[in-house]
């Protein structure tokens, strides 16, 4: 599904959670939604899912409004973190409601996933571990096959093998049945290879919206003796730097063309890539 958001503002009383978001998401892509705690990720996803009504601005999914608009919301799925299904009785009950709500539900796929994540329909949700509840959420999100599927930190409490199984199933099913998927996660290095595009939000605003690989190619670590590093990076956007004795490493944001790369090599500087997580940290203002 296509998502169009223009000048979206969301307020909770005095607090402004979303402060003028404009965003256009295409069909059949996997998006990473990154942001610090309190940046507005969950607020944005809640509006896109129709859980909350926008205070101002325009929100359209496939051209239609979302809030209290069942023909659209039945094709949108937002899986939040592990606490979500706690009050429901058994896994069977959770799946019953998911099937009832989701137009594109695939029960056979749900059963395969239950087996893969070692859950049974008889389990009582309240007595399940946090990781098991997250797995149940992931199963509901995947088997729902909603044309717009969103996972908001749905991995919480899942151990590394379960998260890997989640990523494998997500990719395989996405390739078999392309749909628009938005994933928010703090495990940036772990999930970023899955993304086609990345949206970074900070303080309720969009800071970056770019192809994931293009974003990565914009970051370069320039390392060498301090004076030539400073000379080379003068006039460039320097996100941050670290120094060890006479050696300095500066993180530069912006594409370096071949001429600049040769210039760096001639000055004895080393150029290296920057991890998505480091770019994220610096683009959202560093530690607070």
């Amino acid at each position: 599904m296509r998502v169009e958001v223009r000048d979206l503002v969301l307020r909770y009383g005095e607090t402004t959670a979303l402060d003028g978001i404009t965003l256009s998401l295409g069909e059949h892509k996997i998006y990473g939604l990154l942001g610090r705690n309190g940046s507005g990720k969950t607020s944005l996803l809640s509006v896109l899912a129709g859980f909350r009504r926008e205070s101002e601005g325009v929100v359209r999914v496939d051209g239609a409004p979302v809030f209290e608009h069942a023909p659209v919301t039945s094709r949108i799925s937002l899986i939040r973190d592990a606490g979500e299904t706690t009050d429901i009785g058994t896994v069977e009950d959770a799946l019953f409601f998911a099937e009832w709500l989701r137009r594109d539900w695939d029960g056979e796929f749900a059963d395969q996933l239950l087996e893969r994540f070692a859950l049974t329909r008889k389990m009582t949700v309240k007595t399940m571990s946090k990781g098991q509840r997250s797995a149940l959420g992931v199963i509901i999100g995947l088997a729902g096959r909603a044309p717009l599927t969103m996972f908001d930190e749905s991995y919480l409490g899942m151990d590394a093998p379960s998260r890997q199984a989640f990523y494998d199933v997500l990719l395989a099913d996405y390739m078999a049945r392309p749909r628009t998927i938005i994933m928010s996660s703090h495990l940036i290095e772990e999930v970023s290879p899955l993304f086609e595009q990345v949206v970074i939000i900070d303080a309720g605003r969009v800071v970056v919206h770019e192809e994931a690989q293009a974003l990565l190619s914009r970051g370069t670590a320039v390392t060498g003796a301090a004076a030539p590093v400073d000379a080379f990076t003068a006039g460039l956007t320097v996100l941050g730097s670290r120094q060890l004795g006479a050696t300095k490493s500066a993180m530069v944001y912006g594409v370096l063309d071949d001429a600049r790369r040769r210039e760096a090599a001639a000055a004895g500087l080393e150029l290296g890539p920057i991890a998505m997580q480091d770019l994220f940290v610096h683009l959202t203002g560093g530690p607070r």
Partner: protein
Amino acid sequence: MFDDRSPIYRQIADRIKADVLSETLKGDEQVMSTNQYAAFYRINPATAAKAFQQLVDEGVLYKKRGIGMFVSPDARESLRAARRESFFAEVVDPMVAEAKAIGIPLGEVVGRINELGSR
């Protein structure tokens, strides 16, 4: 599997080129699909597709509509030619620089090369 600090598609491209050079992938042989690569490396299929497009642009692979991607018959030879061109700058020059930095006389280096060459 990947150094996660560099663009993945470049690394996929490098790996396919290495397979072509070593003849693990032969001329006119079909390569795995983008989706198979994506699943294997746990990456977005668009990223894998970019790597393949780069290889098509470079003439290493060619597309057969509706079937898939194949190794160009002359891919190995042109990769070898390109590697030969950069061999001195990328392999020999750094070796000589290293030898000088750590004080190995170049005569010893040449002696070793002759020794290996006559084996």
